């Protein structure tokens, strides 16, 4: 028993560099895992890695777009387009700046605003902001997301009081404006805003908490 443990301890440091285990069926893969898959897509056009990303994220992006009211044939196309964007621009992905989930969320949201909301100026503006972000990723106060435990953010979302959680979901998952939320819930505009402010402060606090 002792002998075999020692053997494992000896080989582990070498294996860790070369081999990223696929996630166990129930455990969510972490940002580091996705970053490794992205490197393989970027450096070797690795289709197996790409399809691991596809299998995990395509259904989630599809659900996100359906929730926004995008009809199925369009949401299918937008999901494919988001993943094709990933295939083409994998080299642009900077794990020090954002996790793959955040990166794909931005891609899908931008496609939604461009294709569904038909705001043709949104995409070029976002590309311009991305370039500014790249110029800044070396800034001392920029915090690499890969070092953040995404589980902590997810737990913080789950811990929001019911009303705050509802408003955050209406904002992100239904893309409702403050005044739409206010009208739908019959809640004063000022209360909608202050509730969203409190939620953001809590969630930001969880991301910035020292660990």
């Amino acid at each position: 028993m002792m002998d075999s443990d020692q053997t494992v301890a000896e080989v582990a440091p070498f294996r860790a560099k070369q081999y990223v285990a696929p996630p166990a069926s129930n455990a969510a893969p972490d940002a580091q895992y996705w970053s490794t898959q992205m490197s393989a897509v970027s450096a070797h056009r690795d289709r197996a890695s790409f399809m691991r990303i596809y299998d995990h994220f395509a259904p989630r992006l599809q659900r996100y777009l359906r929730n926004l009211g995008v009809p199925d044939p369009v949401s299918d196309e937008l999901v494919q387009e988001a993943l094709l964007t990933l295939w083409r621009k994998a080299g642009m992905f900077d794990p020090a700046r954002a996790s793959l989930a955040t990166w794909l969320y931005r891609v899908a949201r931008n496609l939604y605003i461009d294709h569904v909301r038909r705001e043709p100026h949104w995409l070029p503006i976002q590309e311009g902001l991305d370039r500014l972000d790249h110029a800044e990723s070396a800034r001392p106060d920029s915090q690499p997301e890969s070092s953040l435990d995404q589980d902590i953010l997810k737990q913080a979302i789950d811990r929001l009081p019911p009303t705050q959680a509802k408003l955050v979901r209406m904002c992100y998952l239904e893309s409702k404006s403050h005044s739409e939320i206010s009208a739908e819930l019959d809640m004063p505009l000022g209360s909608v805003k202050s509730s969203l402010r409190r939620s953001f402060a809590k969630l930001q606090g969880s991301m910035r908490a020292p660990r």
Partner: protein
Amino acid sequence: MKPNHHLDDATLLSYSSGALPAALAVVASTHLERCATCRTRLLDADRIGGALMQQQRVEAPTDDARAAMLALLDAEPAIEQVAPPADIVEEHDPDRLPSALHPWFGNSMRALRWRRVAPGVQRIRATGISGGDLMLLRIAPGSKLPLHSHGGSELTVILDGAYDDMLGHFGPGDVADLDGEIQHQPVTSPGVPCICVAATDAPLVFSGWFARTLQPLFGF
């Protein structure tokens, strides 16, 4: 110069989720172009979106959907991998309008064709924008604007010159992110005209008879 007045957290969440009305989003983008602090905060807001997107319970993709995706990869030309873009050089051309405004007002400050709407106040209103009202305002130095509040939300970014109100001093790059409860009366600084871009998602409400007389002139 680093801005001192920033976007409200609630506005950032709305921007990140794609829910900010188009006119307000143009003004928010104008500030984001100039404000690294708010771009970092926006990334935090996007992380929340990423986490919510990833948290959803879903079924595995069908074999047909996977085959369709792989077929699309086959059809992709073997392109050179896109490298991260080189750092862009900050241009300090005082005549150049922020990129977010180009589709609506062109790119040159000098080429703007102002229209006088009240003594000391000139305006250019964007046409064809959905979701709110978007305009450039050019207010003579040392002017006092009528006291007004807002039915909905108002976002203003200073492009040149400055003004003061009860919330403080607003100079180039600063954003005034106001909601319906705030009544304010900006006074522009002496020297150069105050040029700003402003968007509302609901009509402004002026108070007082003088302001009510001005209201039709502003056409808010």
